[in-house]
């Protein structure tokens, strides 16, 4: 049984309340940090841990924190990214629902480390129940002296607020999130400058995913070195995996990074195999934005090594034969699923969610959706397949934010690995229509 750092107490009755959470060792990291550590020492500890951003990009958290500008007379902000909208990803919602104080605790320690006096948790608007849960948890923590003025007599003041979004996938992109938090449309900004230099209200800002912030708690409690012992290579620590699709036991699992994909999919400790006794056809390993892989390539790399659930192993082989860990949203497809239909569904999603600022993304996503729709419904031509590849290529790398890439990769990878299925839709229009 793998060690659990984030979900250890998730099944304790009443763990969503301050008292029970505290009785189970909650808020120890705040006491340790505020009473015995300097902000810089906390940043160092996080660097030592090797923790990488759990929102999907995997950027080293300690390094990002150390890049935070500290100009005189300017506020600094920590903003937690709880916009979770990547199809296949549902770990943050789970964590906030069942163990909200873990996020609050992490926010206090992280805000202290960064010198933020006001911090926000930006939660996607549809998560109204989670917003209520967090607001209650914040009130409880404040009541107990862990938030507000002069926390635990340390002289450190912190206010923590929950900010709702309005329903827009793009607001998970950190600069769009910042725009949205300021009360505007969620149009991404051009980076650089990174938020660490100029973020909310042009002030230095760190944006971190819910799971990243939560992981700071065990790192401070047990030390960065202990954390770094878990995992494999540069993929240190534990990771929450959201598993969905045709599985016997879909759900959120905390794994030590480095677990073999095969074990994750088939063992009873995790997903328990493919539902209804069917065979596995394909897997999207890291949320809808990452390339899809056929069963053989998700289980083994082209060098015939077992594929592991880690940043490096999942991207082994590049996009030719590999994919990405991304946000850890694993979607499993059984043998009856139609790759063309799913690709069309994802293309429709990205077209719907494009903010419309850059023409390659705005026009390209719409074009891909249209072409995939006609292929799926039996009106496609053979040349449509290469047309899709061409459009995807023209979007990739030519846009302000990575939503364009995220729209292009699923299409390009589906054609790379399942071209025969696309061709079948052209040569068998009648069956395709059914």
């Amino acid at each position, binding site marked *: 049984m793998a060690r659990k750092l984030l979900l250890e107490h998730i099944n304790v009755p009443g763990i969503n309340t301050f008292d029970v959470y505290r009785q189970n060792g909650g808020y120890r990291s705040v006491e340790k940090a505020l009473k015995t550590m300097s902000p810089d020492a906390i940043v160092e500890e996080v660097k030592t841990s090797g923790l990488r951003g759990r929102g999907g990009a995997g950027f080293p958290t300690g390094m990002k924190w150390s890049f935070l500008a500290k100009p005189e007379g300017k506020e600094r902000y920590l903003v937690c990214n709880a916009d979770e909208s990547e199809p296949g990803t549902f770990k943050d919602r789970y964590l906030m629902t069942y163990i909200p104080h873990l996020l609050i605790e992490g926010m206090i320690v992280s805000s202290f480390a960064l010198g933020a006096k006001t911090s926000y948790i930006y939660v996607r608007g549809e998560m109204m129940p989670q917003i209520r849960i967090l607001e209650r948890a914040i009130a409880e923590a404040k009541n107990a002296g862990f938030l507000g003025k002069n926390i635990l007599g340390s002289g450190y003041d912190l206010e923590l607020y929950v900010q709702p979004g*309005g329903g827009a996938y793009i607001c998970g992109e950190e600069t769009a999130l910042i725009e949205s938090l300021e009360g505007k449309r969620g149009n991404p900004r051009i980076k650089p400058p990174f938020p660490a230099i100029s973020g909310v209200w042009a002030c230095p800002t760190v944006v971190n995913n819910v799971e990243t912030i939560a992981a700071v708690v065990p790192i401070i409690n047990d030390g960065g070195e202990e954390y770094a012992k878990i995992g494999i290579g540069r993929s240190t620590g534990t990771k929450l995996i959201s598993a969905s699709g045709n599985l016997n036991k879909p759900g959120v699992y905390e794994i030590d990074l480095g677990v073999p994909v095969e074990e994750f999919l088939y063992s009873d400790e995790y997903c328990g195999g493919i539902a209804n006794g069917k065979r596995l056809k394909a897997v999207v390993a890291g949320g809808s934005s990452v390339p899809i892989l056929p069963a053989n390539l998700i289980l083994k790399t082209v060098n015939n090594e077992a594929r592991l659930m880690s940043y490096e192993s999942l991207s082994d082989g590049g996009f030719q034969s590999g994919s990405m860990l991304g946000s850890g949203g694993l979607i499993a497809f059984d043998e009856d699923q139609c790759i063309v239909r799913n690709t069309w569904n994802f293309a429709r999603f990205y077209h719907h969610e494009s903010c419309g600022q850059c023409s390659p993304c705005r026009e390209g996503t719409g074009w891909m959706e249209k072409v995939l729709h006609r292929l799926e419904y039996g009106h496609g031509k053979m040349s449509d397949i290469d047309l899709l590849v061409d459009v995807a290529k023209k979007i990739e790398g030519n846009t302000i934010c990575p939503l364009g890439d995220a729209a292009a990769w699923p299409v390009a990878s589906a054609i790379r690995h399942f071209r025969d299925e696309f061709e079948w839709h052209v040569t068998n229009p009648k069956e395709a229509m059914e």
Partner: protein
Amino acid sequence: MLSVTEHKDINFSSDLVKQFDDIVTRYPEGKQKAGLLPILHLVQAEYGWVSPEAMDKVAAYLNIQPIEVYEVATFYTMFFLRPQGKFVLEVCRTGPCCLVGAEKIMTHIEKSLGVKEGEVTSDGKFSWRGVECLAACGMAPVLQIGPEYTFYEKLTEQSVDQLIEDLKNKI
């Protein structure tokens, strides 16, 4: 897309304004515009949609231009720009949910309610629409109902029938 339906001349209740006042204290001096999304959510929870009149009033409250409110309300999918049914069933229509039957659920809802996506039943009680991934893919298929966004997971045609029955009795 702004609705042409006239909304009655509205006045925010003092209770609602008190909630607005609380929201704008969360931001630094002069940055009260950040309160726009939370305030629009409160307005929608109160009236069921955000009318042009309500948006103008919000603009006046925040001391910003009306266009700054319109452009936000039209950008985000959660804000209804015309009246909806009392209960809006929002079904996830994205990939992972479709792998386990979301499309069948939507067809079933369309048949049960007898209205197309986006339309309101003649008694004004229901409307429905497809929405994108609700971060509950492991409990698919799922739907949500505002204004509190209650979730209903692992839907079957039977559980949807039951849900609609329960909601009918609730009014």
